[in-house]
């Protein structure tokens, strides 16, 4: 039966064969064991695709040298003055490589290309030392949010220090659980630079950041670093005006959290698929107090650095192809 199910499924996928589709559905409708087999087959298939996709990206990153990055064009910067604050950190990446699937059973096959484009590898180098604006950002490329400051380490590298939990732009009675710092990203230049054609490729946005904790307050032993990315089809001013309620209108979201512990340090990544309708990304890095305190609390020496937003562009997979 497994062979029959596989054959029918591939007939539908590869040739859009309506007779096979009817037969496949009839088989699944009438035989519980066929449903069990099909479910298991598809979960295994997804595990396989996930594995192959991961291996492809890893091999690209491992084998290909990083091509020198270039700035966004002046045209793009002029198009939106809001890009200016992060222009120094907003770098275009380049072709990382070609997925080397050249031979199948001794015969050459077409190449699949995956690209990684670095949007923002922000090390806070373009910011003034000291407090960041204490409000939700209204311009693209601006770091602002709850109380936090840019500091310079002894080695000259910069990082952002979370000062205390707060409730900026939240409901007046809201809880002050975390210190959140935000940046708005215009996705249009990314699309232009990627030559994004949604039907032919899938783009995944990945937000990464390094969190560090030293000397946590005795009453806050459970601090956690959090990365979040939310995508909207909206204007930045509208997002700022309606935050956080507008989160309900997000077209895609991703998040990742890590417990730091005393002296803890960890780099984490959150990711989500970039849908064609998304126009603006809100990225945030936060230090969460791990407690539902209703008032602001100091966060000791807790830091975030090396915040990067990356777009990973993969060719579309063939499973949905019909002729």
């Amino acid at each position, binding site marked *: 039966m*497994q062979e029959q199910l596989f*054959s029918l*499924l*591939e007939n539908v996928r*590869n040739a859009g064969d309506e007779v096979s*589709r009817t037969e*496949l*559905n009839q088989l*699944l*409708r009438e035989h*519980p064991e066929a*449903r*069990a087999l*099909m*479910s*298991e*087959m*598809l*979960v*295994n298939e*997804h*595990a396989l695709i996930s*594995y*192959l996709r991961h291996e*492809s990206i890893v091999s690209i990153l491992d084998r290909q040298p990083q091509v020198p990055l270039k700035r966004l064009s002046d045209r793009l910067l002029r198009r939106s003055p809001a890009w200016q604050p992060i222009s120094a950190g907003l770098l275009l990446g380049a072709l990382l490589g070609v997925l080397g*699937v050249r031979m*199948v*059973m*001794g015969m050459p*096959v077409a190449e*699949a290309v995956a690209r990684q484009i670095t949007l923002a590898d922000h090390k806070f180098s373009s910011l003034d030392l000291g407090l960041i604006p204490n409000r939700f950002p209204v311009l693209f490329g601006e770091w602002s949010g*709850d109380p936090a400051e840019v500091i310079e380490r002894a080695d000259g590298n910069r990082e952002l220090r979370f000062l205390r939990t707060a*409730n*900026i732009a*939240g409901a007046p009675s809201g*809880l*002050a659980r*975390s210190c959140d710092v935000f940046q708005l990203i215009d996705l249009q230049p990314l699309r232009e630079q990627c030559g994004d054609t949604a039907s032919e490729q*899938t783009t995944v946005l990945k937000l990464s950041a390094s969190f560090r904790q030293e000397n946590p307050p005795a009453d806050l032993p459970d601090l*956690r670093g*959090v990365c*979040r990315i939310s995508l909207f089809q909206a204007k930045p001013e509208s997002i700022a005006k309606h935050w*956080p309620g507008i*989160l*309900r209108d*997000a077209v*895609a*979201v*991703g*998040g990742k959290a890590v417990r730091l512990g005393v002296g803890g340090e960890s780099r984490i990544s959150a990711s*989500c698929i970039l*849908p064609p309708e998304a126009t603006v990304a809100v990225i945030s890095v936060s230090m*969460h107090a*791990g407690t539902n305190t209703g008032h602001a609390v100091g966060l000791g020496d807790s830091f975030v650095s090396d915040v990067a937003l990356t777009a990973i562009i993969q*060719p*579309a*997979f*063939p*499973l*949905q192809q019909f002729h």
Partner: protein
Amino acid sequence: MPAPFDDIRFIEALTRYQPTLEAYCHANLANEEDAGEVLQATCVKLWEKAADWDPDTAFLPWAFAVARFTILAHYRDRKRDRLIFDEDVVQAMVQQSEESSANFEDRREALAVCVKKLTEKQVALLQAYYTANQTLREIAEASGRSLSAVKMTLLRIRKQLATCIERQMRANA
């Protein structure tokens, strides 16, 4: 700063189980692109409803329920000719899909071991079909083999992997 998804335990649970949810979507749609779309819509719904989840209860059954409704909504939104399964079949497969997906992480771990046992040619065929945008017919034409021969080879590899995954999972258990 309060937000609808501000609960750290919710973020941790969603992060942990997102691959499982994606596998569940794929098991119901048999199409990687649709599964990605539905997963994203499911995540948005989960974040909207984060306050409904009791962190002292299991996350996955609740998330499966939300994903199920999202999949069915996807079925109603899409034209029939874009879909592989009929809606009543998806509803009939729900139980099996949840059971198969629930241990997705174990399956993926087992698969990583099993793929390493394949020959280079076998892996190349999988790459060509599952990541390099090649149809079976294109692979057949490029290799000078018949379509049915390529399909049979792919089936044999998939069977080999399925057997190995089950064996590996039993050993790990």
